[in-house]
């Protein structure tokens, strides 16, 4: 039996082949997938303008409204900029009239129009999003690909919003049409590259969440699924920030005590979201959500902080700065009792950040000492925090390459000295001895490893001698020599690493 190919998850979305996706945009042919299903259909029927709604008598108005909704279900290919110009304009004008009609008139939302409206909206906005034009799309740098049919689509979104916001709107009637399937399709559209569309979607989803109590659990569940897929499978979804923004207001409304479901959402989804490559795009919204949770229920502080520490970035300084920002936001609202629970692991990390060779990371961490609330927390717990911070601060004050950092560190040291002069003096006095002890410990460790390697070799030889007795499926058995080399090499690199960075 074959072993599980470890990359099967990648295969789940095997469309990242850069060469293809880097295709230069060719509008004529690369139409939106929306038209794929219709590619074999006869040419788009021409639509002709109907009389204005405002000119119709009140008895005819309803019928005309339905007709217009129906007319707006005809779709046009916007990549083709030459054909159907007249019909496109007619549809645009009709949509615009419909927007006016539902926003200014009362009593127009009678029961029969609900299915018609839902059908019209679904037909116009629900589609498989086309492949991304630019595989390395960097939302911070690159221009997004805009939706070609926006002139119509914008009005459809506008209309749908006005419909949802109409005072006569009856969720009880609408829920037959705006159902789970509808919501699922709506959520999938959040992957759109067009920020204008995502903005509308955000408002639409917010209204739906507000008005359809029965759909709330479903919306949350589907958002969870989107996030989980984003975190663990594809790392690609354009609408994370928008969804988090909605969630921010949803969390705000959670009742206390928090349900287990919501706590699970925090720990299993929001915290792991911090690992995403594209964190910069939605970090503000994410941090807001996390802080909301802590404000709701301070007992969550410990797990949240420990979660963040677990996923602390190891190589990406930019993300590290964001994490520090989020920690500061958390510390701003932390309860002193909660602070005590996390101060040790947290300040070990902060101490590492302060010593970071990347000056922005070091600077961000040192800024904590400008925050009066944090300062008061540190002061209160200085006996615990001072020993954790002192070593790195002292060292950095002597050897950081960046003068700004050195200056900041001096200030921090001064603050700490003022907090607890006695402890500070003790630490200064024992600094050298401590370093030496650490170094000795390190040497001991190395020595022990060396012994261990020897032991391992002996075991190996013993095994090889007994090979006919015990059939070892030891993976390195045949590569003794090579493995030994590898160990030597590893030892060399270890040494280099520790030597060069420790000094």
């Amino acid at each position, binding site marked *: 039996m074959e072993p599980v190919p470890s990359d099967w998850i990648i295969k789940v979305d095997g469309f990242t082949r850069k060469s293809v996706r880097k295709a230069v945009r060719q509008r004529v*042919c690369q*139409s939106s997938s929306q038209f794929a299903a219709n590619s074999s259909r006869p040419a788009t029927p021409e639509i002709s303008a109907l009389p204005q709604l405002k000119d119709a008598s009140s008895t005819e108005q309803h019928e005309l409204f339905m007709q217009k909704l129906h007319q707006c279900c005809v779709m046009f290919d916007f990549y083709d900029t030459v054909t159907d110009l007249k019909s496109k304009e007619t549809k645009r004008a009709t949509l615009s009239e419909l927007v006016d009609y539902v926003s200014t008139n009362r009593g127009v939302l009678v029961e029969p129009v609900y299915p018609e409206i839902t059908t019209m909206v679904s037909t116009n906005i629900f589609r*498989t999003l086309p492949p991304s034009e630019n595989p390395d799309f960097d939302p911070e740098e690159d221009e997004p690909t805009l939706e070609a049919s926006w002139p119509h689509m914008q009005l459809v979104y506008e209309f749908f919003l006005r419909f949802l916001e109409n005072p006569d709107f009856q969720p009880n009637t609408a829920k037959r049409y705006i159902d789970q399937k509808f919501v699922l399709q709506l959520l999938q559209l959040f992957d759109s590259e067009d920020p204008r569309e995502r903005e509308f979607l955000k408002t639409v989803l917010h209204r739906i969440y507000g008005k359809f109590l029965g759909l709330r659990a479903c919306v949350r569940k589907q958002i969870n699924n989107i996030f989980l897929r984003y975190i663990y499978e594809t790392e690609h979804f354009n609408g994370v920030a928008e969804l988090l923004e909605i969630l921010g207001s949803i969390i705000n409304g959670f009742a206390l005590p928090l349900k287990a479901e919501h706590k699970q959402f925090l720990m299993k989804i929001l915290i792991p979201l911090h690992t995403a490559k594209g964190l910069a795009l939605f970090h503000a919204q994410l941090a807001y959500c996390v802080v909301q949770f802590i404000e709701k229920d301070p007992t969550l502080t410990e797990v949240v902080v420990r979660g963040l520490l677990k996923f602390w970035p190891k190589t990406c300084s930019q993300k590290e700065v964001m994490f520090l920002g989020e920690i500061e936001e958390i510390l701003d609202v932390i309860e002193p009792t909660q602070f005590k629970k996390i101060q040790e692991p947290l300040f070990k990390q902060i101490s590492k950040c302060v010593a970071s060779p990347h000056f922005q990371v070091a600077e961000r961490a040192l800024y904590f000492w400008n925050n009066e609330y944090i300062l008061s927390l540190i002061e209160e717990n200085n006996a615990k925090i001072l020993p954790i911070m002192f070593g790195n601060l002292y060292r950095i004050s002597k050897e950081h390459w960046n003068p700004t950092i050195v200056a900041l560190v001096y200030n921090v040291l001064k603050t700490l000295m003022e907090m607890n002069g006695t402890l500070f003096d003790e630490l200064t006095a024992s600094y050298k001895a401590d370093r030496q002890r650490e170094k000795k410990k390190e040497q001991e460790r190395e020595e022990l490893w060396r012994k*261990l390697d020897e032991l391992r070799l002996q075991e190996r030889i013993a095994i090889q001698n007994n090979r006919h007795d015990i059939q070892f499926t030891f993976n390195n058995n045949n590569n003794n020599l090579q493995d030994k080399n590898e160990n030597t*090499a590893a030892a060399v690199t270890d*040494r280099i690493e520790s030597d060069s960075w420790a000094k």
Partner: protein
Amino acid sequence: KNNVNIKEIGPGMAGADSDDSLYPIAVLIDELRNEDVQLRLNSIKKLSTIALALGVERTRTELLPFLTDTIYDEDEVLLALAEQLGNFTMLVGGPEYVHCLLPPLESLATVEETVVRDKAVESLRKISHEHSPVDLEVHFEPLVKRLASGDWFTSRTSACGLFSVCYPRVSSTVKAEIRQHFRTLCSDDTPMVRRAAASKLGEFAKVLELEYVKSDIISLFTALASDEQDSVRLLAVEAGVSIATLLPQEDLEALVMPTLRQAAEDKSWRVRYMVADKFSDLQKAVGPEITKNDLVPAFQNLLKDCEAEVRAAAANKVKEFCENLPEDSRETIIMTHILPCVKELVSDTNQHVKSALASVIMGLSTILGKDNTIEHLLPLFLAQLKDECPEVRLNIISNLDCVNEVIGIRQLSQSLLPAIVELAEDAKWRVRLAIIEYMPLLAGQLGVEFFDEKLNSLCMAWLVDHVYAIREAATCNLMKLVEKFGAEWAQNTIVPKVLGMANDPNYLHRMTTLFCINALSEVCGQEITTKHMLPVVFKMSNDQVANVRFNVAKSLQKIGPVLDSNCLQTEVKPVLEKLASDQDMDVKYFAQEAISGSSTGLFMEKQCALFPLSKKCFRDTWLPKCFVQLFTKQTILLFILTPNLPAEPSCSVYHHLLNLSLGSHI
């Protein structure tokens, strides 16, 4: 609670332990809990050493419970652990005890991080084969069931990959349960689990009895293929192909074809892409009749799809699809159905579609034969040779050999030349590099006269390209050309030009002369080397630039075997001796190297063996890639420069090494 023993060993590390062998093991376990992730990771990677030293009994009773308890850790550590445990069977006492490994792996199979989970599943699959049938039912299958009914999606996802390994070896009652569990997961609430189930559906179908394939799998396949999420539907396509291979021909039409047909026309381009991507497998699975009736029109549609991604995937399959068509109707189908689509793709608006087509289109000529190729395909080749996108042209040129067999390359030569010239001067060096690689092939097919007239100047121009990789490839190209056209041709056409460059003001070009001589001396033979090349090399030993001089030493070492011993003694040796007393330490070094001959060569080779290993160590830790290359190269240099490196190197040597790698020396 089980790890009490080990925890007791831990603190014992500082004090001297009477049992010497326990001493480092205690440390290792202590290291498994070290605060520093990197150290924890190192220890986990050497977990087998621990187990080996503890012996099977204590591994089972102390180490494994300890590991099961420490599952909450960094994912990187967990990944290493999951991998290690897959190879642990012997370390816990052989197949009889292999089930001891299940608890830690079960926990690992439920973590969030995908790579850890996948590795745990991989290890579970591995050790499943080491279970006896009884153990499989008593220990393994209950684990699969627990995972399959786990609360969080991760465990259910992991379960999907385990059904197929235990199914064949359990009793029929348990089999029925497993099928039931799989069914449940296929309609799971979360799309993540449905995706996992869909991706394992084909594999599971393979181990099922045919009656259950028909009764169970087909309905699951149909359901997954019409899932509300396209990410699930597309995975069902692959499963469909596997299922089709399992069914007898007469059942295919009724059981799988409706679903597959629907997938080929799915509204999501991802699903259609998947169909296009798996088309050849599908074709083989369904056989000739269905291919003729169903797949041909489906393939046409995919070639005309509105998404470029789908068209490109389909274009990639053109040759394979045509090759596998039933022989009796192959030509008709290609000519009437496929070729018209192919013609359209030649002028597709998307370059990747064209380039995909260009990489396979030449293969059609062998299928269609000479006349059809000349009449129908040749115009397409010519059109693609003139395409605006270099990749398209390159793909055509790189497949010229297929056409050569059928109609001969001469048919194309008039169009080839401008295409080659343009590619030879392309702004992207990778394109230039690619075309150089086809030069020997083209030269062979076009003949020496055509080459001398049209292509020779290109080959010489590459020698002075501003990119080293191109100059290097150009040197190698010359060697291959001489192999084709002979030494006499070399002496008349290229050797004078190469030697002429020895007087170039640019030292890089002068070095190119040396590199060419290195490459050409052997193919040109002793006479040309001694008479024409050697004097130039000698002259260059007085070059002002040290790099040229030490390359002279290297060249002399290289061409030594071609020369006769008299010449070596009377002419080469004095020059090398002069270089050995050069002012520059590198020149000196390489001259000495050349004098002492091959013994140092061996040394260097030995050190180079370290190269991939040290690279491997670095990659895992903190060094970015390019730095690794620089570093390792410099490491090797250092090893060469310090041949008597002490066995137990002192720190200062490594400081020196670090300085070297940072570019402060040499």
